[in-house]
């Protein structure tokens, strides 16, 4: 295995993506809205296209704004359709994101005569090439370090999500667990819902522009679901999901280098391998988690605890 400095950057970028995704991902999983990331990452396509058609450039900032706005709108439209019609949340999510995605495709076909806006590239991204797009460089001791733009973007998003999660921990927690209680406590659960949706939209858009959306969808849901199997406390779930996501990024990249030659292929996509690794880690946790794993449930089946155990109060 030939490990160069670019490989380190790829792992760092993957790990930052994982951390940025895992934090809002935990709340999505706990709210039963895991597919929201998937929906938003597809639905932002018309935002990208409109931003391009309006400004006429591929400047990443305007594209980012366009996509993020449509991302939040996806959540708003989903909520409207759920509230107004007799449509459940999953179905309304499906309606909104497929419609927006199709609209985006139409717009891109219109725009495609002028510019190279490739939907395939938008969806699958290419984390391997991110290291060529250098944002700035600095001297670290005697070595010159080139910092890729992707690391800056995803580092900022990870930091933003970390700040939101820390500062609004109580509010995010109570609104996810019991929105009605949150409301009676004077915490606007609806507002917290849209804060989370904005986080997901920004994270999804920032990440897929640089690393592709397959890894975003995987990193939003799978590490969070894995961490839920391993702990009973929300703050540990957040920490563990970030660690699992970051490890999956490292392991995934190593596997992407090592595995294909073994079975006679040239190489494979790192993003794909990172996403597959999150799935493998989930399976390991699902089998061997201390309390909720398959193995421990088999072993503890004999001594089921009496639900009425423990002293009862005296009246």
């Amino acid at each position: 295995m030939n490990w160069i400095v670019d490989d380190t950057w790829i792992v760092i970028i993957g790990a930052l993506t994982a951390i940025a995704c895992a934090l809002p991902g935990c709340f999505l999983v706990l709210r039963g809205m895991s597919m929201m990331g998937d929906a938003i990452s597809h639905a932002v396509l018309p935002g990208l296209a409109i931003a391009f058609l309006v400004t006429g450039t591929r400047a990443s900032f305007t594209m980012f704004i366009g996509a993020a706005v449509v991302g939040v709108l996806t959540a708003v439209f989903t909520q409207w359709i759920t509230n107004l019609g007799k449509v459940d949340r999953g179905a309304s999510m499906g309606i909104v994101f497929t419609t927006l995605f199709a609209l985006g495709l139409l717009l891109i076909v219109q725009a495609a005569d002028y510019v190279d806006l490739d939907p395939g590239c938008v969806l699958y991204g290419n984390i391997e090439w991110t290291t060529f797009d250098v944002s700035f460089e600095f001297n670290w001791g005697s070595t010159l370090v080139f910092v890729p733009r992707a690391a800056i973007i995803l580092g900022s998003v990870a930091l933003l999500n970390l700040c939101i999660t820390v500062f609004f921990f109580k509010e995010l927690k109570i609104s996810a667990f019991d929105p009605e209680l949150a409301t009676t406590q004077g915490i606007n659960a609806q507002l917290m819902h849209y804060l989370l949706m904005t986080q997901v939209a920004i994270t999804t858009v920032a990440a897929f522009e640089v690393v592709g959306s397959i890894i975003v969808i995987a990193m939003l849901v799978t590490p969070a679901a894995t961490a839920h199997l391993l702990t009973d406390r929300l703050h540990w779930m957040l920490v563990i999901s970030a660690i699992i996501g970051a490890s999956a990024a490292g392991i995934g990249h190593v596997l992407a280098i090592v595995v294909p030659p073994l079975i006679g292929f040239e190489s494979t996509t790192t993003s794909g391998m990172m996403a597959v690794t999150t799935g493998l880690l989930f399976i390991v946790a699902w089998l061997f988690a201390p309390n909720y794993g398959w193995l421990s449930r088999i072993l503890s089946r004999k001594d089921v605890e009496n639900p009425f155990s423990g002293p009862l109060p005296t009246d």
Partner: protein
Amino acid sequence: MPDLAYHNKPSATPPLREDDHSPRAPLSIHDLTVAYHRKPVLWDIDLDIPEGKLVGIIGPNGAGKSTLIKACLDLVPKASGLVQVYGQPYKRQRSVVGYVPQRESVDWDFPVSALDVVTMGLYRDIGWFKVVRRKHKDIARAALDRVGISHLAERQISQLSGGQQQRVFLARALAQDASLYFMDEPFAAVDAATERAIVTLLKDLQSQGKTTLVVHHDLATVTQYFDYVILLNMRVVAAGPTEEVFTAENLHRTYGGKLTLLAEAGHALSQIKRG
């Protein structure tokens, strides 16, 4: 002619004008109407709840009992009407109102401990951007102790029995130290020991001068538990002290032609006669 009586506005509670409401009542509801998808579920509710009462809200399924509570707490939109808590809108009185929702309203697999859930009742006091401190945890632990499960404080909530989960919700409301409590079916599917513990707690709250409204299903225990009842079936059929209002005629009007429930009502009345 019971049918006509049911469809007309009941005579037991004549409609109040706005200035008829006593300004310091823990809860006064004026002309409240609530609709879901344009279909009304509560009509012209006019109520004044006197201070220090333990109030049972009784009525058949779909009568709007939970909706009445939720409308008071701004959890469902009002089509019209006014709700006042100690003479002020609810928005300004959040800190004196405690709420115990139905147990099925949350996901018990959520990764929090019993203590965490009770602490959530204090989030308003703690405030934005601030963290939960030891003193808050102490208040929460004391509340768990009051409902007899402080030894389960660190348990993840899905590892509690139904009765214990209900006690966690009660402790959460107690931690708030409110003066007006709304409880949505706290007796649903709990064990006998928990039921006794809840009743003791309710009487305890009453002896401290607090007002509690409880959505209740079991007609047989109404006279034992509550000294004030609201008979509800989309409209207020009757409201007042239990001995005056909890009569065969009123129950018949509340439950209409539902035979099985009439049988239950008959059973409840036989209990009154014996008691």
